[in-house]
Structure formats: C-alpha cells, structure tokens
C-alpha cells in the first residue's frame, strides 16, 4: 500500500534546542557533531538569487537594487502564473509610404492559465519582444525615498553615539542591549527573536556624507476624508470586475479595486540557501551556484548516513491484542551496520505520543553494506547471515525485513503510535584519522548512535 510509505508515518526525534519530530527525508546529519539536525536547528544563509522562469542568476547586491524582482519576466496579476509573450501580425503603415500597409509584428503578454492578456488592462502592444513593458510608477515613491534616507541617517548617527558611549564607559559591563539599534545580524543578535530592521545599517551613508542634514515634514493630518460615492450601496456589483484580496495585496503600491487596473508585476526572485550547523559551524547543505543545476556541493542529508525504518505491512490492529507488524530497515552506507532495537523505558521523557506497547527483537540485526554495483555483478556470492526466521522476514542486499509485536493500549479513535529506540554503529569517515602508533592503517572508529523513532500505524480495525 502506498500510504504506508508516506513520509510522515515514521518520524525521528531530533534533540536540538527544541525537540522536533520529522521524517528522516527532511533531516540533516552533522557528521562532525554526529547528531541529527532539522531545519529549525540550522542557520539558513542565502547563496544566490535567481529567477524561476528565466533562470537568470543575480548577485545579491543587484537583487537588492531591483527589489528582488526579475527584469524580464512578468507575473499575471490575476492568477500569478508566469506571463508569456505572444505575437500577432497587424497591418501597419510603412514609414516610407503611408498609403501602403505592411504586416508588422506586435507583441502582447498573455497568461496561459487564466487567459489574461495585457490588452485587458489597456496596455498597448509593443513592437519589441522584450524590454518594452513598463511597470506603472508609484505616486508615493518620492516621499518614501526621502523617508528612507532620513532614517538611514538617523540610524547611522545613533550608531555613532552608541559606539562613542561604549568606548567611554568600557569599564562597566555593557549588556547586550546596547549594541546597534538597527544593527547587522551578528551571531548573537540573530539568535534573539524580534530583531529590528537590520538592513538599513547596511546601506548607511559613508562617513564623509553625514554632514548633510535631511529633514522631513511630518505627514499632514486631514480633517476631511473623501466621501464615498453616492451609489455605493445601490450599485449592483459585477463580480468579475472586483479584484480579490489576494490580487489586490500582491500589489501593495496601488491595491486596485477594479480588475481593469491590475497591471502585471515583475516576477519575484527565488533564492538558493545553504545550511550550517549552529554548534560546529560546518556546512550541512551547499547547493551549486548555477540555477539550472540541482546538485549540491555539500549534501549531508540524514538518509545517507542513518538506517531508515519503513513500514511494510500492518495487520488488523485490535485493542489489547498482540499483532505483528512488518518493518524494513535499509542501510545507506557501504559497510556492514549492526543495529539494535530497544523499547522505550518506563519514564522516558521522549515517549509522549505512543499509544501502544511494543516488543522489539532483542537480537542484534546485521545489515549488509550498500553495494552500488550489485545489480550488475552476476557472480556476487550471496552473503551468509544466520537469520532467525522469527525475527527476520527477508533479506535483500542492504535491506532487511523484521517483525515487531504491537499491543494497542488505548481504544480511542486516533492512530496507533509506537516508539522505540534504534542504536546503530556509525563510522565517521570525515574525522581525521589519527595515525596509530603501530604505523598501520586503522579503520575509522565506530561510534554508537541512538535515535528515537516513532511510527504511526493507522487506526484500530473496527
């Protein structure tokens, strides 16, 4: 059954700052700390920006300048799909001879999903295929730019004052609260939630320019507000003409209420990010720079280091009756792995979700290494493992199927969940091998890792 292979059926517990339960496919493994890491216990860093439709790479400074939008691609204002440029032939008078007409190509933007075209908004067809389309000007741009400049100057000035105070009163221990107000994200500041605007200080003025005093006028307060039109309550609404909230808020500059004012916007850039372990500062995931490439330079994902437990078949589960569940264990590394399973202790703080008692096999399970060439190698000798048929159902290259016994304890409507600990040996090939005293090559030391696994076995049989 395909539903048994859903990723959230088997979750592993990550002991980081928070206890997170996530399927193994979504976890990373730091092989320097020898621990599982989830997306919440790593720091995310932006690698590069790229446009998802034209796949054009952009350095971060240029992206910031263009407000994280692509210059060539547009989004449909109606359904947010990517717009494509279409051409039609229109008769146009030749520039030399006004009486004759020739077929000229005119380009317009069209959406393939909702059939919106740029002619709907009144944008004239352009004669160039790309680069002719302009976004409408925001009427408040000047005021906003002035406000930004003023606040940049203010931030810079305050930062200088604080630094001066810091130097003057260095003997008193300054708490962290006295660091930059609109400061950059240093490691300490980043960990505090609710950090204030951090990008303004990056764009702060240079030293020599802070002589120019920028002053702004406060926003004028109006007494009278524009009255509503008289037929506001009586006019029948034509629903296709009214924009939805989503369409409106995607254009915060204008927020048009009518569909005839929805102009296309440039497409948002996406970014590639790299992940870094917070404890040891090593990179866990670093993608390639090229947006067309999906490979990684560094990819320390958990599925390639930790044996994966999957559910293979579940019999009918009945309240307080023992049933056998068939699980599989897959070995991702190339050397033989020894796995021991243990049921959770009585007062285990991790075991909050389980609703059934489980009896795991007490013997050690041996998993063969993953041999990439095994399917092509016909002369491979079948490995001889002495398997107890009560415990091991089958064995296939680096996979093994084994039974566990489950006794559901609660007769409620939810899923039966079961948890146990899995202990396996891990050979750390990343750590530098210390030269042994005998002078020979010692294999990497095996350390034993324990993980807490929870399985969701589905509801009780009616």
């Amino acid at each position, binding site marked *: 059954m395909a539903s048994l292979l859903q990723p959230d059926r088997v979750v592993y517990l990550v002991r980081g700052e928070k206890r997170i339960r996530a399927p193994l496919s979504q976890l990373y493994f730091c092989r320097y700390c020898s621990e599982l890491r989830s997306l919440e216990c790593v720091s995310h860093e932006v690698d590069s920006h790229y446009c998802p439709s034209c796949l054009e790479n952009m350095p971060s400074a240029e992206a910031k300048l263009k407000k994280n939008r692509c210059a060539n691609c547009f989004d449909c204002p109606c359904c947010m799909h990517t717009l494509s440029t279409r051409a039609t032939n229109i008769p146009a008078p030749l520039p030399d001879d006004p009486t004759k007409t020739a077929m000229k190509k005119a380009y317009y933007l069209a959406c393939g999903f909702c059939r919106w*075209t740029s002619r709907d908004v009144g944008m004239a067809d352009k004669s160039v295929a790309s680069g002719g389309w302009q976004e409408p000007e925001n009427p408040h741009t000047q005021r906003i730019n002035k406000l930004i400049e003023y606040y940049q100057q203010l931030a810079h000035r305050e930062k200088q004052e604080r630094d001066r105070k810091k130097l003057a009163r260095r003997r008193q221990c300054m708490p962290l609260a006295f660091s930059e107000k609109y400061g950059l994200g240093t490691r300490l500041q980043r960990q505090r939630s609710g950090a204030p605007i951090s990008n303004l200080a990056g764009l702060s003025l240079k030293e020599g320019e802070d002589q120019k005093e920028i002053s702004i006028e406060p926003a004028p307060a109006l007494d009278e507000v524009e009255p509503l039109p008289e037929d506001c309550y009586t006019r029948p609404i034509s*629903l*296709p003409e009214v924009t939805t909230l989503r369409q409106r808020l995607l254009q915060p500059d204008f927020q048009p209420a009518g569909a005839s004012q929805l102009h296309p916007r440039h497409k948002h850039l996406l970014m590639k990010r790299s992940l870094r372990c917070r404890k040891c500062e090593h990179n866990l995931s670093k993608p390639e720079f090229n947006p067309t490439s999906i490979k990684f330079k560094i990819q320390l994902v958990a599925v390639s280091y930790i044996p994966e437990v999957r559910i293979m078949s579940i019999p009918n589960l009945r309240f307080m009756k023992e049933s056998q569940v068939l699980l599989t264990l897959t070995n991702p590394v190339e050397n033989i792995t020894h796995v021991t399973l243990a049921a959770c202790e009585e007062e285990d703080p991790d075991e909050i979700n389980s609703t059934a008692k489980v009896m795991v096999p007490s013997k050690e399970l041996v998993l063969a290494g993953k041999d990439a060439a095994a399917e092509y190698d016909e002369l491979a000798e079948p490995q001889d493992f002495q398997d107890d048929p009560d415990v091991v159902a089958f064995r296939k290259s680096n996979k093994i199927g084994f039974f566990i016994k489950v006794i559901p304890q609660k007769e409620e409507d939810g899923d039966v969940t079961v948890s146990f600990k899995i202990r396996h040996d891990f050979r750390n090939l990343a750590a530098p091998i210390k030269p042994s005293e005998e002078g020979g090559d010692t294999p990497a030391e095996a350390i034993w890792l324990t993980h807490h696994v929870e399985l969701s076995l589905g509801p009780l049989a009616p």
Partner: protein
Amino acid sequence: MSDYPTFPKWRHNETYLVQTNRKSLIYTAAETYLKPVDPCCPRTVVHPKARIIAEAGPIVIGEGNLIEEQALIINSYPENITPESEVEPKTMTIGMNNVFEVGCVSQALKIGDNNVIESKADVGRNVILTSGCIIGAFCQVNTCEVIPENTVIYGSGCMRRVQTERPQPQTLQLDFLMKILPNYHHLKKTVKAGHNAS
C-alpha cells in the same frame, strides 16, 4: 438500440472512417456510437478514442469543431429517470469552432460557438455555454446556469473572470490535422447505408 452499427472486433490501432458530407473526417475507434449523428458536421475532426454517445436524443454538431482523444460528449438520460419510461428525446446542439480537449466530459445540452473545454473538464447537463467560454482544465461545472459570453473558468476553486476577446478558431490546426491524420491511422470505410461518400 438496434440502430447501432455492429462493429466487428477491432485490433488496437484501427480507426473507422465514416465519411459524411464534404470535408468531414471522422476517425473513430470502435467505441464511437454515432446514433444518430446528423450528417452535417463538415470540417470537424474527431480524434481516435473520442466518444460521442447519443443515448437520450440526437446530437447535432456544427462545423469546425475539434474533438480530441478520449473526449466524451454524451447526451444521456437524467439520473433519476429509468431508461424504460418514456422521455421525450432532447437534442444536444453543439455550435461551431469549439474545442473539446483531451479527456473532457461534456453533457451540456446547448453549446454555442468558439468555446474551449480544456482537458479533463466536466460540464454538467444543466449548463448552457454561450460563445467564447473557456472551461479550464479539470474544472467541474455542474451548476444550473447559463454561462455568459467570454467567461473563463479556471483554477482549482473554479474562479471566473471575463476576458475581452473570444478564443480564436483553430483553423490552422484543423487543416493540419485533416492532412496528417490519414497518414498515421488505418482507415476503414464504413459499409453503412445512407451516408454519402465524399
């Protein structure tokens, strides 16, 4: 029911050329029952494996239509009426230049001109499509209404909007298909009486 032509067992790729009036090419696989499609759909191309089932009444198809593979145009009995009871047969009318894309199901009794029913869309019996409507892919429209002109129904929530232009008739594609399809499908002339060979 005895009006259905009895087709011999077909091999997989064979299609069936039913030649009606001029310039009409209907390629059908064994599953097409053309009872009784009036012989008046010139310039219509019906792809293999399309099904046009006229169960509860005749289907009249206009010209210039494009009915793609696995499309199902069915004039069926309403659900709560058993086939035995006497029901007046209602004619299903389909206008000109419509496109029924792959896998769509259309039970609408009246379809106007220049409509496009996209892939896997489902149009119910009580819907009346006027002109220029586009029913988006996988949209199910089984309300009881007349869809105004130039409406586009799209998206998983079946959002609607009105477009300013009607979709263009697919003349280029129709010409292309009429030339190309005979090259790629086996044709078998029907022995049915009452149809004029072109």
